[in-house]
């Protein structure tokens, strides 16, 4: 049996878990190639124009998978990974958008609801659907899940040690590392805020992370932050955002502002992203209070990348110059 997983959205956060889990159950896992012009176009043609680019990309990947000869497509419905909080409505309705848009795909889709206490979604109930649908024995199911969870936790620990989610996944799944090591001649550290599915999709973010790394910039992202440090920031707010990953981004943003090692913050957001329209404004208002350079990069399905190159170069140059000045004591 082959199960397909679209290389999009939370793939970038949970792929190690899903891959190991299905493989432990003796199922072949098929994923789509990196997002390409073709895949984005598929998504754009088959979705409502106002959707944000990551969701369009997901729909593109989904259609691509249908052509790749898989038996089922794993398309979980993310509802909540923290009590009282939710995902963006588009995540919660994503399986519905897809199953009502294309005839006959519903039988092929595996749509378990994801409810969890925290971002470790390896809870038994989230994977019980395999027993109901395919008669996997509870024992085998739990065993596979346990192994998968262990790998995923390693993946997270690797991120906490300072690797981006992508580097961590590559290392855990034993792929050749394509990490560019910064030479640290002129250490600039930038906090990059963005959802995993924007930041690590090389097409959507136009490889922003690697572009920065190749400019001798070391970066810090939300997945490198300890949960308790993030929570400390959130406690200061009178009311949290009720989307878990947005909350993490906001908390990471404030920690970056307070962190003296971080020289500037770049917020990568998709055109039309609802949660980001709120948290971006809050961070923008506060960036002046903390006197930290802050830049928003808004991505969509267009692919011209020169403007991006120019903007991040200018941003990094500005920071370098500022640091040089302070060193000279000017």
């Amino acid at each position, binding site marked *: 049996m082959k199960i397909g997983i679209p290389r999009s959205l939370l793939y970038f956060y949970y792929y190690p878990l899903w891959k190991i889990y299905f493989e432990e159950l003796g199922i072949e896992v098929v994923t789509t190639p990196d997002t390409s012009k073709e895949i984005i176009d598929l998504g754009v043609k088959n*979705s*409502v124009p*106002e*959707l944000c680019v990551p969701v369009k990309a997901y729909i593109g990947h989904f259609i691509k998978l249908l052509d790749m000869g898989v038996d089922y497509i794993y398309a979980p*419905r993310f*509802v909540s990974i923290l009590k*009282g*909080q*939710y*995902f*963006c*409505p*588009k995540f*919660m*309705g*994503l399986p*519905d*958008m897809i199953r*009502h*848009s294309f005839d006959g795909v519903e039988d092929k889709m595996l749509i378990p*609801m994801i409810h969890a206490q925290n971002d470790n979604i390896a809870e038994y109930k989230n994977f019980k659907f395999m027993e109901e649908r395919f008669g996997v024995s509870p024992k085998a199911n739990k065993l596979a899940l346990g192994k998968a969870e262990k790998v995923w936790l390693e993946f997270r620990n690797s991120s906490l040690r300072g690797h981006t989610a992508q580097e961590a996944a590559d290392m855990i799944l034993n792929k050749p590392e394509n990490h560019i090591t910064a030479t640290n001649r002129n250490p600039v550290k930038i906090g990059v805020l963005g959802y995993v599915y924007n930041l690590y999709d090389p097409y959507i973010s136009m490889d922003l992370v690697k572009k920065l790394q190749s400019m001798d910039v070391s970066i810090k992202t939300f997945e490198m932050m300890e949960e308790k440090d993030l929570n400390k920031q959130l406690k200061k707010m*009178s*009311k949290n*955002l*009720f*989307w878990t990953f947005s909350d993490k981004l906001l908390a990471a943003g404030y920690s970056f502002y307070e962190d003296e090692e971080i020289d500037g913050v770049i917020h990568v957001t998709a*055109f*039309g*992203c*609802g*949660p*980001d*329209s*709120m948290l*971006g*404004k*809050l961070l923008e*208002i506060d960036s002046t209070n903390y006197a930290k350079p802050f830049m928003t990069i808004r991505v969509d399905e267009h692919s011209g990348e020169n403007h991006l190159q120019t903007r991040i170069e200018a941003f990094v140059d500005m920071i370098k110059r500022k640091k040089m000045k302070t060193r000279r004591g000017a």
Partner: protein
Amino acid sequence: MKVSFPYMGTTIVYKKLLELLGHEVIMPPKPSQRTINLGVKYSPEFACFPLKVIMGSYIEALEAGAEVLVTSGGHGPCRAGFYEQVHRRILEEKGHTVDFIVFNSMFRDFKQFYSNIKKLKDKNSWLKVIKSLWLVYLMINKLDILEKEVQRIRAYEVKRGETTKVWESIQKDFDTVRNKVQVMAAYDKGRKRLADIKTYEVKEDRKLRIGIVGEIYVVMEASINMKMEELLGNMGAEVERSQYLSQWVAYNALPSFINKTHEVDIIKAGEPFIPINIGGHAKQTVGHIADYGERGFDGVIHLMPFGCLPELVSQSIIPKISQQYDIPVLTLSIDEQTGTANNLTRVEAFIDLIRGKRMKKIS
């Protein structure tokens, strides 16, 4: 306390409630071009349109001297639950000092709900509060009955614009009531005035009925949705909205186990399409379209703010519902662009199409 609130729909009822409790109410002006401009200027660029309009309303209300803003809150997953936080920050940044009283669901945090009520209650007795609430609820109900009549009559009025004028003056009458007897008197007077409007006779099989569904703010607030109800009425179509204040109140004030309102059925009708609550009114939108389809409506206009998260999900599903129930649906996304010609053309074309479909059925 000088109190104000966001402008939405028949605002006299909120005003009445606050007045009955002895507060000085600063009426926010009806959203105008200036309101929208102010809102757009200070709001995040990609925030949804209601946030921007309400931002503008708040600024205008503060200019008029408001000290406290009463609004609703929420806990997601739709952005509306976070409005007040963003508004508060922006107003602070702009240098205003203002208090917010935010009503979140009383089933979630009763303590806060209670303390809010107490703030508004001031020195009034609980009996007075309950009496006031009851009177306002009666008013909402009566106004909604009249409004539904207005939406029907407008399609057939002989003198264009008469119904709208009468409706405005009915609202003015309601604005002055102080007790139940006066509410009933205003209601009877309103009924009579509506009945006096001269209308054309239209054969039953020629009547067009259009439902309006979508996000509550753009559906309810005529000044920002190109006066959609009037527009459709003037084109000769009866209109029904998915949202009326009385329904909203009844649905939200009752705990789920005794909740037998129409909204419950609507949500059930939406279940096959969106099984869980994904925030906002997506499920209601979907359910209402199915409901209108079953009740034999001729078409549905779906209104949403640009980029509205839940409504994008319903918009994605609409083609399927439209097919299943054989009911045409036109989605219009509303934002600060005020050029109406393009939407107008689309609505006209939509009505023509529906009328054509109807004629085919008759012949």
